[in-house]
């Protein structure tokens, strides 16, 4: 598998056609997800398959199609051979240094796994990865939600002034029919159920709001691409509140922790699980909406 990973990666970097590189990358992402299963990290494998391979693949594929669709190809540019050689030297050195760093990692490896398991009862959760994300290092997760909001603001801020407040225009194909349309009609009910299930089950089993939200987002995007649903205008008040629901509830529960528990982002033991679920439900919605809007791109139509 290692060989296959490397071969596809080399192909994705060296192949001349951008389109081929992007398709190779999507395949590569699925292979990486398998590697994560091998590494006994099913939670990460789900996220990798959903986001690392799935959404990123769609995003890059869409961009490649847009850039290719025009009759004016990007000006052919050559990188100077000197730069190429020195970049190769630096990159090889980085890879070699990293390889050595991995090789010389100490035995036995230090780990926080016992500590994570020892404290898990007070979180009411059974999945230690979820406990890290929602309790021990909840601050990282909260900040990462803000990163997503900020990315949405950043993408929207790129709108041409005439289109401000309008709808993202890249995905919507009102005339699309055939296979895509069929799938877009059939898949979403299943997708929604799977997405919610992944969020719900994450308390005790692999899953989580991210893979769950990604699948919801994927269903929405599919519907947009098939022309069954249009992207909402960015001026929509309900859209904005959907984006905010997760981060706002998360922050509010965080501050609540200062009043009813020991600290910011702490949960009282008796209510830990209900509070975490109370955060995850709006978070699932927000993640789905934010990922969907990030894929839909810059507002272009009023």
């Amino acid at each position, binding site marked *: 598998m290692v060989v296959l990973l*490397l071969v596809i990666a080399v192909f994705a*970097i060296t192949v001349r056609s951008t389109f081929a590189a992007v398709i190779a990358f999507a395949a590569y992402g699925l292979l990486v997800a398998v590697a994560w299963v091998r590494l006994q990290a099913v939670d990460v494998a789900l996220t990798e398959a959903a986001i690392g391979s799935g959404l990123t693949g769609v995003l890059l594929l869409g961009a490649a199609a847009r850039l290719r669709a025009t009759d004016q190809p990007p000006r052919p540019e050559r990188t100077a051979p000197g730069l190429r050689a020195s*970049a190769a030297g630096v990159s090889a050195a980085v890879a070699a240094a990293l390889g050595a760093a*991995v090789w010389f990692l100490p035995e036995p490896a230090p*780990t926080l*796994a016992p500590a994570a398991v020892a404290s898990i009862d007070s979180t009411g959760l059974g999945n230690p990865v979820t406990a890290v994300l929602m309790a021990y290092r909840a601050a990282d997760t909260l900040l990462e939600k803000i990163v997503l909001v900020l990315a949405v603001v950043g993408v929207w801020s790129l709108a041409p002034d005439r289109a401000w407040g309008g709808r993202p225009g890249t995905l919507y194909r009102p005339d699309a029919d055939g296979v895509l349309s069929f799938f877009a009609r059939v898949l979403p009910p299943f997708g929604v159920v799977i997405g919610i299930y992944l969020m719900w089950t994450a308390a005790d089993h692999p899953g989580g709001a991210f893979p769950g939200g990604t699948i919801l987002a994927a269903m929405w995007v599919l519907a947009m691409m098939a022309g069954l649903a249009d992207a909402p205008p960015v001026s929509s008040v309900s859209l904005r509140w959907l984006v905010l629901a997760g981060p706002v509830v998360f922050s509010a529960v965080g501050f609540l922790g200062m009043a009813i528990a020991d600290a910011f982002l702490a949960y009282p033991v008796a209510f830990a699980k209900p509070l975490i679920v109370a955060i995850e439900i709006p978070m699932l919605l927000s993640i789905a909406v934010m990922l969907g809007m990030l894929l839909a791109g*810059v507002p272009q139509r009023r």
Partner: protein
Amino acid sequence: MTPVTLLGLCSAALAGLGLYGMVTHPHPLRKILAFNLFGSGVFLLFGVVARRGAAADLGGDPVLQALTITGLVVAFAATALAVALLLRFFDATGTATLAPAADHDADSGNP
């Protein structure tokens, strides 16, 4: 050599490959793709170190696994922003080159 170490060396190679692509590809979309390759090498490194820390009946250290999930999301947000910028730039100019326009500035320091 254990399979985990092998995967560790593989992720080192992937990171190096991604870095090379980021520096040398003139096309921004290829740079973005290479960044994702670089990122996946780095994340696999997280997974390798997490796997080495398997203990307490867990297959890996949940802390590093959780950090990877956060990292993957951040990397996706970065990719989305970069692609949006690129497409907007393309719409505005009809090209997708990062080479400075001729009259850009007196920057002669570019080797």
